[in-house]
């Protein structure tokens, strides 16, 4: 058994959800809400993992200059690959 929620939605959003239900995209307004919650929770979980990795990378960044040099280094591979593709 799940828990019940009582939601107050702006009329505009509620009407848009009803339109989607009428169009057959969702079986009911409840199904839409369940889907929206699941998707948001999944996205939050991914965002948490992404933040953990980016924060590790950000701690390593000493200056903008370092970032620019790394970008320049990375672009070398693309220059070669593009030149090869243009030869074909």
């Amino acid at each position, binding site marked *: 058994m799940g828990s019940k929620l009582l939601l107050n939605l702006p009329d505009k959003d509620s009407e848009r959800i009803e*339109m*989607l239900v009428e169009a057959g995209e969702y079986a009911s307004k409840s199904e839409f809400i369940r889907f929206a919650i699941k998707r948001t929770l999944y996205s939050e979980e991914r965002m948490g993992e*992404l933040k953990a*990795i*980016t924060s590790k990378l950000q701690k390593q960044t000493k200056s903008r200059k370092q970032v620019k040099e790394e970008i320049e280094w990375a672009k070398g591979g693309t220059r070669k690959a593009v030149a090869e*593709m243009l030869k074909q």
Partner: protein
Amino acid sequence: MIRPVASRPRVLLVDTTVLYSAIVYKGLENKVLFSGDYIFVTTDFVISEIQRVIIAKRGLSRQEARKMISFIPVVVASSDFTQEKLKEADELIGKRDRSDVPLVALALTIPGHDGIWSTDKDFEVVRGRFKVWKTRELLKE
């Protein structure tokens, strides 16, 4: 079926300079990337560059790098998709920097996008053709 939608968010094509900065530097680029206000599209070249550099220069494992890239809120277009526009793009920007050719090819391929987001001065040469957004302009929007 016509879906009821809110006003369309801007679709911006993003280059390595801003995307990499947004990931490794907690600055304005980071704010824009995670603002949720835009739809970002990039090329698989940009993604490969970022993957290469975070493995080689920042010590992330291949697995960590792949995972991180899969979580970034950016749509990635394959190079096959832009292949036909590669020569035209090379004529536009190739002399300035060949590494920017794939993103310009993407700009020529995608209809109805809202411009390129970059801080790279090389994109000045395509300003007449596409809107080139600086990071601060996007924060003011």
